[in-house]
C-alpha cells in the first residue's frame, strides 16, 4: 500500500450548531484523480480549506503530503495548488502578469517565472490572450488561466473546487482533458470537487459522495454501482406505443417483476409516472420495469403479444447520476443502500 497523499482522519468542523464536516475519513493515493461529489452546501469547500490549513478543524487531522495542514500550512501550500471555485484574478493586469505574480509569491525568480508562465499559457491555450487584461477574459478562459495559475508552482497535488462551474460543454471537455493529461503524464494527484456528475464521471478514478458533512460512499464507479445493485435489480426501459392498463397488468404478472411505471424519457424524475406522459409524449411512452432477474425477452414478447408496438428496449445501467440521486433522495433510501 502506497502512502496516501492526502489523509483526513476524523476531521470535524462546526459553525455554531451547524456541523459542516462531520468526522470525515478519507485518503487519496498519489497519482489518482479523486472526485468529491456532493450537493451545494455539503461541506466540500470547507473540507478543502481545512486541507490547505486555511480553516482550522474543530477536531481531527488533515495530513497532506505527510505534513499536518493545520500546523504547517506554509509547507502544504508550497506543494499544493488550489483553484477556488469562482477563481478571481486582478482584472486590470494581464493574464501573464497574474501568473508571474503567483510565481513570484512562490519564490520563483522573475525570469524563470516569465518563461514558465508563457509555457503554461501555451499549454492551456491562452498564448494569444497572454497580454490581454484578465477583465476581458471569458469565463472559460479564466478557468483555464486558473489551472495555469495552479500549475505554475509545480505542485504535487492540485485541488480544484468546482472547476467546471459556468463553462460551456466544449470548454468543460477541454478542461477535463487537460486535467486528465496532467494527472496521467506528470503523475499529479488531483482532487476535484463538483456537483456535475457527468463531468466527474468521465475523468475520475475514484469518487467520494459527500452529503451533509459526511462521506457516505467512496469508490470507483463500479464499486458504487455494485453497492447500489446489491438489493436488486434489473431495470429496463421500453419505448412503446399502444400503452394500456391491461398491458401494465400483464407486465406485472411476469415473474420477479417488482415495479412497472411510466416515466419521462428524459429521466429527470426518478421513476414516478407523470399522469400526462402519454398525452404529451406524442408517439410513444416510456415504461420502466424493475425486476429481480433479467426478464427482457419476456417483456418484449408480452408487449408484442398485447398488440403494442415496441420502439425501443434498453437495459438501464446505474450511472453516477442514479447513484447520486439515490444517495441524495433522503434518509431512508440511504439506509437501503447501506
Amino acid at each position, binding site marked *: 500500500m502506497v502512502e496516501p497523499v492526502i489523509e483526513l482522519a476524523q476531521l470535524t468542523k462546526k459553525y455554531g450548531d451547524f456541523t459542516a464536516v462531520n468526522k470525515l475519513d478519507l485518503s487519496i493515493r498519489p497519482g489518482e484523480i479523486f472526485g468529491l461529489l456532493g450537493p451545494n452546501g455539503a461541506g466540500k*469547500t470547507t473540507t478543502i*480549506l481545512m486541507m*490547505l490549513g*486555511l*480553516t482550522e478543524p474543530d477536531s481531527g487531522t488533515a495530513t497532506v503530503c505527510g505534513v499536518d495542514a493545520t500546523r504547517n500550512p*506554509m*509547507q502544504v*501550500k*508550497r506543494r*499544493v*495548488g*488550489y*483553484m*477556488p*471555485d*469562482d*477563481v*478571481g*484574478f*486582478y*482584472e*486590470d493586469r494581464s493574464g501573464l502578469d497574474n501568473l508571474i*505574480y*503567483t510565481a*513570484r*509569491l*512562490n*519564490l*520563483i*525568480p*522573475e*525570469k*524563470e517565472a516569465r518563461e514558465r508562465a508563457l509555457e503554461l499559457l501555451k499549454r492551456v491555450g491562452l498564448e494569444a490572450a497572454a497580454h490581454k487584461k484578465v477583465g476581458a477574459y471569458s469565463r472559460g478562459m479564466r478557468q483555464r488561466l*486558473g489551472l495555469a*495559475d495552479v500549475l505554475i*508552482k509545480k505542485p504535487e497535488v492540485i485541488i480544484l*473546487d468546482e472547476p467546471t462551474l459556468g463553462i460551456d460543454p466544449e470548454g468543460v471537455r477541454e478542461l477535463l482533458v487537460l486535467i486528465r493529461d496532467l494527472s496521467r503524464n506528470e503523475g499529479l494527484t488531483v482532487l476535484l470537487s463538483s456537483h456535475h456528475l457527468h463531468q466527474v464521471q468521465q475523468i475520475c478514478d475514484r469518487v467520494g459522495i459527500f452529503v451533509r458533512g459526511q462521506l457516505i460512499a467512496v469508490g470507483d464507479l463500479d464499486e458504487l454501482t455494485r453497492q447500489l445493485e446489491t438489493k436488486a435489480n434489473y431495470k429496463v426501459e421500453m419505448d412503446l406505443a399502444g400503452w394500456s392498463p391491461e398491458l401494465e397488468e400483464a407486465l406485472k404478472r411476469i415473474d420477479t417483476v417488482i415495479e412497472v411505471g411510466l416515466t419521462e424519457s428524459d429521466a429527470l424524475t426518478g421513476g414516478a409516472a407523470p399522469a400526462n406522459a402519454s398525452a404529451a409524449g406524442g408517439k410513444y411512452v416510456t415504461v420502466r420495469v424493475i425486476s429481480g432477474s433479467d426478464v427482457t425477452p419476456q417483456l418484449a414478447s408480452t408487449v408484442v403479444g398485447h398488440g403494442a408496438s415496441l420502439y425501443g428496449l434498453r437495459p438501464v445501467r446505474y450511472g453516477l447520476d442514479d447513484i447520486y440521486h439515490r444517495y441524495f433522495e433522503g434518509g431512508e433510501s440511504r439506509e437501503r443502500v447501506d
Partner: protein
Amino acid sequence: MSAWIEKLRTSWTGLLRSRSDGRSPAKAETQSGSRTLSPFWVMVQKEFGDHIRSWRFIILLSIVTLACIGSIYAAVTALKNGTNSANNSNNSSIGETFLFLRMFTESDGSLPNFLTFLSFLAPLIGIALGFDAVNSERNKGTLSRLMSQPIYRDDFLVAKFVAGLLLIAVVIFSLGFLVMGMGLFTIGFPPTPEEFWRVFVALVITTIYVGMWLNLSIFFSVRFRQSATSALSGIAVWIFFLVFYGMIVNLIGNLTLPGDLTDSKAYIDQQNNLLLLSRLSPAYLFQEAASTLLLPDVRTLNPFITQDQAYLAVNAPLSFGQSLLLIWPQVTAIVAETALVFAASYVTFMRQEIRSRS
C-alpha cells in the same frame, strides 16, 4: 505582534542580502535564482504599482496638488503684501527669522494655508488608499487564491499597509519639497538648516498621521464586506474628528464649567480634562504637532489660563530641539493610535475565514 516584527526583519534582511551580494534571501530555501524577493516584498511591490496606476490615486493627487499650489500662492501673496501682518505684529523679529516657514502657515485670507490644507486633505489620501484594500480582494475572489499561496496571512495585511504608507510618504514628501522649491523660486529667500529640518520633521509626522488614517480604513475594509460601507465609515470618522469632535468637546466644556469661577483649582482641572479629551482626536494631535514645528514661537501647547501666565511668558522662539521635545507626546500618541487600529484590523483579519467571494 513580535512574531511578525521578527518576520519583517528576516524578510528585510533577506531583501538587503539579495540586493547586496546577490544571494537568495533567508526564506528562499533552495530556489535556483539569485534575486528572489520574499513574498512580502513582492506583494508590497504589486500593491504599490496598483495604487500608482489607479485612477483614484491620480484624482486624489491632483486635488492635493491643486490645493497646495493654491495655498502656496496665497502664502506668497501674503508675504509680498507685507511681512508684518496682524498675526505677528507683536513679535516681528520672529516673522523675519522664520520667513521661510511662514510659507507653510501664512495666507492672504483667500485660501487656507498649506498646513490647514494638509491637515484637512491628508486623511483623505489615507482613507482612499485603504478603504477597499481587503474587501475588494475578497469580492474579486483573489483573496482565497492568494491565501493558498505560501504566504503568511499577516504578511498580506502588513504588505497592504506598508505599500500604502510608502506611497503616502512619497506623496507627502514630494508635495512638501515641491512647496519648498516653489517658495524658494518665488520669494528668493533660502531656508536655514533649522527651517529645513522643521519642515522635514513636520512631513514625517504628516506621513505617520496619514498612516493612521490608512490603517483605520484598512480596518474598515477588513470589517465590512462592501467597499462602499467601508469608505463611508472611514469618511464618517474623518468628518467626525474634523468637525464634530471639537464641538462636542466645547459642549462638554460648557456643561462642566465650575459654578464658582474664582475657584482657580477647579477651573484649571476642568480645562485640563477638556484638553485631554481633545487630545484623543488624532486630528487635534496632528494640528498641535505640526503647528508647533512650523511656528517656532509656539512655546507651550497648553493654553494660558490666567492673565499672569500670558503676561509672564517669555516671548522668544523655541529652538528646534525644544519644539521637538514639546510635541514628543503628541507624536507618540499618534503612533500609539496607529498601532491600536492596526492591532484591531490584525485581530479581525486573522480571525476571519477566507472563502471565495463570501
